[in-house]
């Protein structure tokens, strides 16, 4: 998200707006990217992002190929650079990369002529998620500039939070981050955000509440003692929602741990736009594929 200008972001969101309509048609396919190939490599498990990219590419008639960690030669010890060289030899137009190491798409892009889209790298960035979040906010609120947004959860380990913060700040929103101090990164203010540890205080007068997933697989009892205690002090529930603005929207990048970071009734409740985020994700990714392939090869998105 660092590389994108405000103009770039507006162009992407406007293009996504135009593509929204395609997904509502009876026949959801246009020939725009016929003869182009999109290869996605997922070194980490992902359902939503992977499906979303695949659907976006197919609706634009691109040929898609998707590799996961188990069929990639990574299990055979091939380095990322060698994988890049081999893929390049097949001359694809776009590579979509999900990787557990921060910076992996940068490494890949150095060895490829094809454009590289970062579909999430370690704890670094998840730019397409941020773009679909911005898109969702703009659609629901009519603007981004001047809005007050709070992000609650494990900010330190979240690539979604990092990309959202950069995108929101660029577009002129006011951002607060919230959660237990063990999950707030060092020098967080340098990202241009305010830190309010207690969600009960942080969500007041906010236009948007973004709840992050607690990564159960990451928890070892060092960052917080138990899910039970997390949900009591940092989870979003009906009681807390009484303090929120009446027209607030609630977002979550998924998948949800119901009853941990957000209760089921709030996630499914009237303020939630969580499923809109998913629909908007396809349009955003269509826009990106279109703009990157249309914009000439060699462009990268991070």
């Amino acid at each position: 998200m660092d590389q994108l200008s405000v103009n770039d972001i507006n162009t992407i969101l406007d293009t996504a707006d135009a593509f929204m309509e395609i997904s509502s048609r009876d026949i959801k396919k246009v020939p725009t990217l016929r003869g182009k190939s999109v290869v996605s490599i997922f070194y980490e498990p992902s359902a939503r992002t992977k499906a979303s990219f695949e659907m976006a590419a197919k609706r634009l008639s691109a040929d898609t190929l998707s590799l996961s960690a188990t069929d990639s030669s990574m299990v055979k010890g091939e380095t990322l650079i060698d994988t890049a060289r081999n893929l390049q030899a097949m001359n694809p137009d776009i590579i979509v990369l999900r990787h557990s190491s921060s910076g992996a798409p940068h490494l890949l892009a150095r060895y490829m002529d094809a454009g590289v889209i970062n579909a999430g790298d370690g704890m670094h960035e998840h730019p397409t998620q941020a773009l679909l979040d911005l898109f969702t906010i703009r659609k629901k609120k009519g603007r981004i500039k001047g809005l007050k947004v709070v992000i609650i959860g494990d900010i330190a380990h979240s690539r979604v939070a990092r990309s959202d913060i950069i995108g929101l700040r660029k577009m002129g929103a006011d951002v607060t981050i919230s959660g237990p101090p063990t999950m707030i990164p060092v020098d967080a203010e340098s990202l241009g955000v305010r830190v309010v540890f207690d969600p009960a205080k942080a969500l007041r007068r906010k236009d948007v509440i973004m709840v992050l997933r607690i990564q159960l697989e990451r928890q070892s009892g060092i960052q917080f003692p138990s899910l039970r205690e997390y949900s009591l002090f940092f989870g979003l529930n009906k009681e807390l929602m009484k303090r929120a603005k009446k027209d607030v929207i609630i977002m979550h990048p998924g998948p949800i741990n119901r009853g941990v970071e957000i209760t089921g009734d709030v996630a499914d409740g009237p303020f939630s736009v969580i499923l809109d985020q998913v629909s908007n994700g396809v349009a955003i990714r269509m826009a990106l594929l279109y703009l990157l392939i249309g914009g000439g090869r060699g462009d990268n998105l991070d």
Partner: protein
Amino acid sequence: MITWIKGGEVIDPRSGTKRTLDIVIQKGKIERLLPPGNFSPPGDIDLKIIDASGMIVAPGLIDMHVHFREPGEEHKETIATGSQAAAAGGFTSVACMPNTNPVNDSRSVADFILERARKANLIRVYPVAAISRGLRGESLTEFGDLKQAGAVAVSDDGRPVTSTELMRRAIEYARFFDLPVISHCEDLDLSNKGVMHEGTISTRLGLQGIPAASEEIMVVREILLAKLTGYPVHIAHVSTEGSVAFIKQAKEEGIPVTAETAPHYFSLDHTALTDFDTNAKMRPPLREPRDVEAIKRGLSQGVIDVIATDHAPHSPLEKDVEFDKAAFGIIGLETALSLTLALVREGVIDLPAAMAKLSYNPASILSIKGGIIEEGKEADITIIDLNSEYVVEEEGFESKSHNSPFIGWKMTGKAILTMVGGRIVWESDEQLNPRS
């Protein structure tokens, strides 16, 4: 044969002075040191004249912290290629750390290292033995046997001693053998899976951080152990403002500690990592601008006694990978002098002080030869051209590896001749003193 080094500015790091002197070398030793115009060579002897006018003549540089990777990782460096890199960088002696495979924790490994160094036949290579067997931090190695085999210090560099009890006993036991104890200060628990300095850049890049406190906690522990035992501890590769402050305070209180830093800690900060450059990944990590300033102050105030490179060669196998998977460490032997000379030009330290940190002080700490140009001493000498300009090139390294963040840097000043025991082991292609 007599070698006559004519008319150079000879540095005396002990007194902090420089004088124009001629040096007469015979049988590997400095035979005479005298003002120019006073030496008339006997006519019947083989004479080699090195015209050093306009050049700096310094005691051979000594790097008390290198990793030569042999035995075990010869694809990164060998004692021969490492020695070649050292000679090219102006170094006449190095102390190599024990984290090889097998670890240098027994006489046979120390013997092997010295045998390889003899075969390479370039510079003086001194093994540093492990503190604990296998660097496991559980039980002491045989300090006495290792010292007799040639070890000049003990250290668990790279895998620091976690147990405070073991470290205390190591320092006490080392005292009996007069072996210096070198500590890589790091709280491994606190560093956890960190891969760079914890701060604004790690927060921005989403990389696990290593807090400054991870180093400082152990610096304080070693200071307290030096106080408890009354025996010196040498702190390796100091990188933070806090470490400098704690060491300064300890020295003021008379606690016997010495300290080193590496050129990258006064030349670069954590912003060098913004493009995920694995050649800027090392341990301890590059810190913040204010740490860099503190290191410079520490050097100028004498808090930091030594500049050592922590020369850590890695091949593309370990470096051309995802950032978090890349190995820690950079090479340094061939850039250390130029980077130190930049500090001299900046006015941080004067030339004799720089040479003290690169030769006299490490020689004193390790009680090894060299570090001074004096009649009767070994002729370990480095001739330096302060004005030579060059660009660091990936293909230009004598080291087997080229994992350096300084590739592409424009440097001023370098070693043009390296002499060990009166023998020239390296000479730059440049004509020595083209003006004469």
